[in-house]
């Protein structure tokens, strides 16, 4: 073991990539990032002394008075007026070469301040349909009555200067309006000062260290994961996938070293490298702050007590072991370095999402989150950084993470017994690459890439729901499986389970839909109890389903019909086909895997259990009936019900528990009927 570990570490430090990517690059990057952040802050500070050009419509005495008053407002932190600001911070522009909107987009003016006549005042804040998507309008009522005008401030959110101008102008405008109200009261004969009617004061009880902890907490685990994966991935990927590719793993397997020892040494080497590199980066960051090479943010205080260090050690070390285990497993599962890199990206994305768990408000360790690796450490670190040391829960978090790490090590050791994975030469030859054989080998890679595609499309088209839905459903879930069938020369009837089921199955599925939907709601409620989800998340999701400004058919088509076809082809079609045709495939494991993948593709952490639950039963329906058509119907029906209940404000959550229990029983009866009607599903290539 000692010889193996020494050998592994020697291989790592002799790899130039490790030194470059994991040590040298972050050494430069950390101060660069910290320095950039300071520069951004400094620039923002400097912006406060800048004057802004505001196009004013119309130019009348009212607007001139508003501008004069706004320019006279002094806020805490405002610098002394400079020569460039003799005319005031907000300068009125009376004429532009282009239209005001064009001038705003081009940066010739920073704001358009318009007085809207009472008859044109709209009741709510809405984005203008006629202008660029970045041009936004904020309206400020100058009075509460309908017959008074409205002041509209138009800005472009994607231009920092314009955004800043809007915030600074409106902040000062509120002060002006307050003064106007006080003046109106005085004119009406009231002698008092409006500010003295109710004196509101606030007092911050948090210590500077707690404030620093609250700011750092949500991102601390993310940075740790970034460092651990960045450092450990090179060692882990080279250790197994790289060795397989070079052929040196087979050499090692013919030595007296046992497979568990080989895996343990590799995992320990990855852990050592990851911990050392993460430690170097943290010390490096602290050193830059202590030496003053990077300016410390205002109020930055770390309460470095032994208690804090102890808690961090019992949390971070097991998490590092877990990350090392994940990396070793990814590497062990891959047949080449390239494949490992492809698989690493979605794994990395999932780790990052988990590490951000502490950003969810209201989530504490005394919930089911304590059993979710990385997420539990994220929540725990968030708590201890603000001075909350709940030792029993911290120790439980540590033990749970250690248990997960041990399980991963065991899984990795078993991978070395998989002859197909260990010896690339046993894998399919080049002429088999475009065949069902090659498909089985490549399927994980394609779904990993699809996941990346969904991730990117959601990031790029997040606010454009129609665009994201069409891209994901048609571009990914439909086209990619169709392409796979064509590329690997699969029989579409088998890959997509295209056959007509027995008539009893249709009836059972029709009955299954409402009951499964209700049970799904129950699963969602239970998930919420175990993993408390902020109301805003649920609201956001329900709004997506309800989108009242879209016609009903658009929602039913985009959220029920398309997923019913496309997602079924992708998950109960090609993915299920590939997994069930694998050597020694265990049916329940296949069903659970497909269900989990289906859940993970739906992103939101709080939706995964409910989605995976439905996905599991859809797999069973497809598998037992021998046809994808009933699972398509079930999927469409479930989604359509979700849209309908959201649009009609039907609160299924408030139904009595007996309704959920009856639905579960009914659902099981439906599944039994489908099971009784099952068809022979012997895997065929």
């Amino acid at each position, binding site marked *: 073991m000692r*010889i*193996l570990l020494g*050998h592994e570490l*020697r*291989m790592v430090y*002799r*790899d130039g990539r490790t030194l470059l990517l994991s040590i040298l690059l972050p050494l430069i990057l950390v101060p660069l990032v910290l320095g950039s952040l300071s520069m951004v802050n400094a620039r923002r500070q400097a912006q406060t002394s800048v004057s802004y050009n505001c196009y004013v419509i119309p130019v009348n005495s009212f607007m001139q008075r508003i501008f004069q008053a706004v320019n006279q407002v002094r806020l805490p932190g405002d610098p002394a007026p400079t020569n460039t600001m003799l005319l005031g911070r907000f300068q009125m522009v009376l004429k532009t070469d282009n239209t005001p909107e064009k001038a705003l987009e081009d940066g010739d003016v920073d704001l358009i301040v318009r007085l809207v006549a009472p008859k044109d005042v709209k009741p709510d804040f809405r984005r203008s349909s006629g202008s660029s998507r970045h041009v936004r309008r904020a309206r400020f009522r100058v009075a509460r009555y309908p017959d008074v005008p409205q002041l509209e401030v138009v800005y472009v959110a994607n231009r920092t200067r314009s955004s800043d101008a809007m915030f600074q102008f409106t902040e000062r405008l509120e002060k002006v309006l307050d003064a106007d109200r006080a003046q109106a009261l005085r004119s009406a004969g009231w002698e008092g000062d409006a500010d003295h009617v109710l004196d509101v004061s606030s007092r911050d009880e948090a210590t500077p260290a707690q404030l620093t902890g609250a700011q750092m907490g949500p991102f601390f685990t993310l940075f740790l994961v970034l460092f651990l994966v960045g450092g450990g991935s090179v060692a882990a990927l080279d250790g197994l996938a790289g060795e397989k590719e*070079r*052929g*040196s793993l*087979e*050499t090692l*397997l*013919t*030595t*007296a*070293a*046992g497979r568990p020892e080989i895996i343990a040494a590799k995992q320990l080497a990855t852990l050592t490298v990851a911990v050392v590199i993460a430690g170097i980066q943290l010390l490096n960051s602290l050193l830059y702050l202590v030496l003053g090479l990077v300016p410390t943010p205002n109020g930055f205080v770390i309460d470095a007590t032994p208690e804090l260090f102890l808690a961090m050690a019992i949390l971070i070390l097991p998490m590092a072991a877990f990350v090392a285990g994940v990396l070793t497993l990814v590497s062990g599962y891959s047949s080449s370095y390239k494949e490992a890199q492809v698989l690493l990206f979605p794994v990395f994305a999932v780790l990052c999402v988990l590490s951000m768990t502490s950003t969810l408000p209201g989530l504490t360790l005394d919930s089911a989150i304590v059993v979710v690796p990385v997420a539990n450490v994220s929540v725990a670190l968030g708590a201890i950084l603000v001075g909350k040391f709940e030792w029993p829960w911290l120790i439980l978090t540590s033990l749970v993470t250690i248990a997960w790490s041990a399980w991963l090590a065991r899984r990795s050791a078993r991978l070395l*017994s998989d*002859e*197909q994975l*260990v*010896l690339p*030469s*046993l894998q*399919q030859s080049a002429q*088999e690459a475009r*065949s*069902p*054989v090659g*498909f*089985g*080998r490549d399927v994980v890679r394609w779904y990993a890439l699809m996941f990346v595609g969904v991730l990117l499309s959601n990031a790029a088209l997040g606010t454009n729901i129609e665009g994201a839905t069409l891209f994901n459903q048609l571009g990914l879930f439909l086209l990619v499986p169709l392409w796979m069938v064509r590329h690997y020369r699969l029989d579409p009837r088998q890959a997509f389970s295209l056959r007509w089921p027995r008539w009893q199955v249709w009836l059972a599925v029709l009955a299954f839909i409402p009951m499964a939907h209700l049970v799904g709601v129950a699963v969602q409620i239970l998930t919420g109890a175990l993993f408390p989800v902020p109301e805003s998340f649920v609201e956001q999701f329900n709004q997506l389903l309800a989108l009242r400004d879209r016609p009903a058919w658009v929602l039913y088509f985009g959220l029920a019909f398309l997923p019913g076809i496309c997602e079924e082809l992708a998950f109960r079609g090609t993915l299920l086909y590939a997994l069930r*045709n*694998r*050597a*020694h495939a265990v049916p329940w494991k296949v069903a659970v895997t497909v269900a989990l993948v289906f859940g993970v593709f739906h992103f939101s952490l709080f939706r995964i259990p409910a989605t995976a639950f439905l996905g599991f039963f859809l797999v069973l329906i497809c598998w037992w009936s021998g046809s994808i058509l009933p699972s398509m119907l079930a999927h469409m029906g479930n989604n359509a019900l979700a849209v309908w209940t959201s649009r009609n404000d039907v609160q299924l959550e408030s139904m009595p528990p007996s309704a959920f229990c009856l639905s579960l029983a009914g659902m099981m009866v439906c599944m039994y009927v489908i099971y009784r009607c099952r068809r022979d599903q012997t895997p065929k*290539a």
Partner: protein
Amino acid sequence: MSHPVEVHELVKTYFEQGRGEVHAVRGLSFHCQEGEIFGLLGANGAGKTSTLRMLSTVLTPSAGTASVMGHDLVKEPASVRRSLGFFSASTALYPRLTPRETLDFFARINGFPPERVKDRVEELVRRIGLESYANTRVDQLSSGMKQKVSIARTVAHDPPVLIFDEPTVGLDVLNAIEFHDVLREFRGQGKAIILSTHIMSEAEKLCDRIAIVHKGRILACDTLAALRENTGDHYLEDIFVRFVTAGAE
């Protein structure tokens, strides 16, 4: 008396996706004695490599038994591996180690007495003529030199059994001849050597006994002289073709 290598009715069946069961080895039996080079002669895909991988415990037999120096393949895999040196075209070296470090690592990991490792490494470096390159990284060596390091790596822990799978593939004539000399030397040291090859002349020159393997079965197993006598053919190539053709019929 048992032989260093004994193989009895060894079977290997793979399950390949889309192809179902693949019978790579179908009940192979043979033995190899001390100071003997036993040849496995067969075309590509005959089952030679699968057999040797089972002997080195990289693959698990589907059925049958085998032992190396009295250690059962399945029950005592670590002892089996400690008793043999395995060389094949697919067993690569570590590119970031020097030949000296490579030999040191493989001697230690295979349980060679630590106090004797240094002397053993120097002995091998001298024997294979690696003095000038002993501290050069393996990835900077020529393929001929790498081959030499690989052979030295195989015998670093001085195992009583050596397995060579297609060792001269890709070697030029001079390097191949040098390898043959090394192999004879190992035989002289009393090692039991199993040599898998599809090169007839190599088998003719080196092997004391030859097993002709085809589609996972041994069609004939004897000395070259006995094979000649039984078939009436002189050249091993003709003998091979005769058995394989008869086996196919």
